[in-house]
């Protein structure tokens, strides 16, 4: 074996490099994006997180005008909650809210999916766009106008009443029938929002690779089979996310429309948790601590539902919010 001889020169030592803090580097690199998201973070903090501070009054004997936290604050623990559980209105309220929400969900969740898949499968894109515009337009009608329209159609002086009278029949306003409240509420809500809700699925469908459709055509798939085997799986992650969010907000029905449609005749079915919170918290002799406790209870139910839906989805479909 040859021996290699020679002198080894000392390595040239450069100036020691100061270790760069990776977190700072990362922050610096992403500064423009962080700045872009900052306004949204501020808005969410101000209007969603900061008011959470107010839920403290659910655990207090609170009178309007009192500071939320002071040395005179009277803490009552879960008393307001137990008052609600023992309230004779508790079960009717829960039942009314649940039924409105669940029926609304059963009809309203699949409808935009079906509509988006149908619009996407239409051969004429022009017809598709026109229908989409027609379907989306009702979303921009205000609730007051919408309920006004319902009254014009189904009220005692409305279109149906006129037709019935014209033919010598009798007509009772649907606003005065408690059995008509839920169908009227749910169907009108879905009519107003299905086109708008379909937009997100239509956007997701626009990302489907056209070559997948062509491959399916060559495989011999019919138009319907292509919807089932190409389009539907493509929007499945979006459906999962929307499903989780819908379940998470299942009990979060608003009070505005129910109040607008509410009459003495349909009160037994139109009184919801949200309308009850509004009435107890802001009308008559306000009992804000009690109303806060009811609202907080309702929110807790939504959070639990959200966690259950997310966990289930994660387990079975690989899609989840977190």
């Amino acid at each position, binding site marked *: 074996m040859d021996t290699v001889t020679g002198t080894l020169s000392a390595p040239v030592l450069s100036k020691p490099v100061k270790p760069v803090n990776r977190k700072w580097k990362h922050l610096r690199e992403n500064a423009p994006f962080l700045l872009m998201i900052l306004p949204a973070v501020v808005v969410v903090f101000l209007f969603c997180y900061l008011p959470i501070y107010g839920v403290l009054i659910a655990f207090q004997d609170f009178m309007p005008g009192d500071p939320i936290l002071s040395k005179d604050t009277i803490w009552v623990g879960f008393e307001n909650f137990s008052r609600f559980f023992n309230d004779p209105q508790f079960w009717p309220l829960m039942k009314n809210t649940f039924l409105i929400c669940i029926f609304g969900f059963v009809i309203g969740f699949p409808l935009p999916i079906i509509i988006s898949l149908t619009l996407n499968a239409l051969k004429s894109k022009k017809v598709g766009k026109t229908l989409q515009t027609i379907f989306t337009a009702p979303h921009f009608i205000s609730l007051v106008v919408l309920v006004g329209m319902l009254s014009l159609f189904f009220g005692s002086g409305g279109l149906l009443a006129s037709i019935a009278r014209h033919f010598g029949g009798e007509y009772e306003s649907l606003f005065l029938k408690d059995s008509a409240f839920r169908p009227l509420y749910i169907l009108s809500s879905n009519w107003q929002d299905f086109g708008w809700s379909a937009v997100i699925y239509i956007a997701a469908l626009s990302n489907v690779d056209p070559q*997948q459709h062509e491959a399916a055509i060559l495989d011999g798939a019919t138009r319907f089979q292509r919807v089932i085997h190409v389009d539907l799986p493509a929007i499945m992650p979006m459906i999962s996310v929307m499903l989780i969010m819908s379940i998470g907000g299942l009990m979060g029905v608003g009070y505005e429309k129910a109040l607008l449609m509410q009459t003495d005749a349909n009160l037994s079915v139109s009184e919801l948790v949200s309308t009850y919170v509004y009435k107890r918290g802001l009308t008559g002799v306000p009992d804000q601590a009690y109303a806060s406790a009811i609202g907080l209870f309702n929110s807790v139910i939504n959070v639990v539902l959200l966690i259950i839906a997310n966990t289930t989805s994660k387990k079975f479909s690989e899609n989840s919010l977190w």
Partner: protein
Amino acid sequence: MAEVILKDLKKVYDNKVTAVHDVNLHIKDKEFIVLVGPSGCGKSTTLRMVAGLEEISDGELYIDGRLVNEVAPKDRDIAMVFQNYALYPHMTVYDNMAFALKLRKVSKADIDKKVREVAEILDITQYLSRKPKALSGGQRQRVAIGRAMVRDPKVFLMDEPLSNLDAKLRNQMRAEIIKLRSRINTTFMYVTHDQTEAMTLGDRIVIMKDGFVNQIGTPQEVFNKPVNLFVAGFIGMPVMNFFDRCKLLLEGGKYYAEIRGVKFELDEFQQKALKKNGVEPCDIVAGIRPQHVTVGEGKLSATIEVSEMMGSEYNIHARCGEDEVVMLIPTVDLTTDVSMGKTVSFTTKPGLIQLFDKATGNNLIWFDADSMANNAPVCKSYE
């Protein structure tokens, strides 16, 4: 296995743009034909018309003797491999391959047998239970080919199937396709913009530009006998050297090519062909392939601008007046100084010079109007 005949096939879109002009092509049974050309030349549109994915505006398409213009894609007995695989992401590899057979109501046992048989051929048996996202690009492309193979189609259509792969994998898959072709022995129509793929895979190559077929021929034919400037410039790597402002001279009954003042007496074959074609002396563009340039001798000279060491050879980019010349010099017996700024002399065998009419761009020897697949327009440029 079937022959495919394209007769005056034309595609005009709704906006009146003609994408394909009267393509005539007779693909023989079990032939591997490659459609090649730059982007927008109409090669994919032609393939898609054969597949039934594009409506045929005019002309006739026959597959296995049957006129299929109005036949649905699924009933044409063809299979297609797409550029980006077009695998169903929610299905496993097995289900992707079995899908077409399921739709045709083939029995489960037969589907299983066929899928496993094809998976064995393509060496993807171990991936049958995986979903496409868990596969590499090359594996996905094999699945896409397998999906087409399970149907035993009469014609195999491939639309740039290797474009999404990196260079190394592309070379591998190209070899795989050659092996596959010998195994399944069916008619292939293959679209690519890569002339290397076209040259290595095709029995015949169809070179298209602007919706027109410019030349149809074997790889040797299109390389050695390009009919016009475009074909000459498109086929071959490095690209053919073109010398502008050249002349075809006729002196004493003999033809000469004058390139930058140097006269080359054309060989016997060229003399006969030019005489037969009745070519008059004219301005020409002379084409010499880099492989046919002899460096270190001759009266032509050029100044080296760039010298690329490619391993086995140097690619020399030199300037010869207004023309750029590429020369290949093997490193094994390098005697020439190839450093930048040096002037080198070069020449070529006169028989290897391609002569293009400056007015029409057509090859004065090889262009034959009758043999052209269609009336391709005058092609004065080689770009």
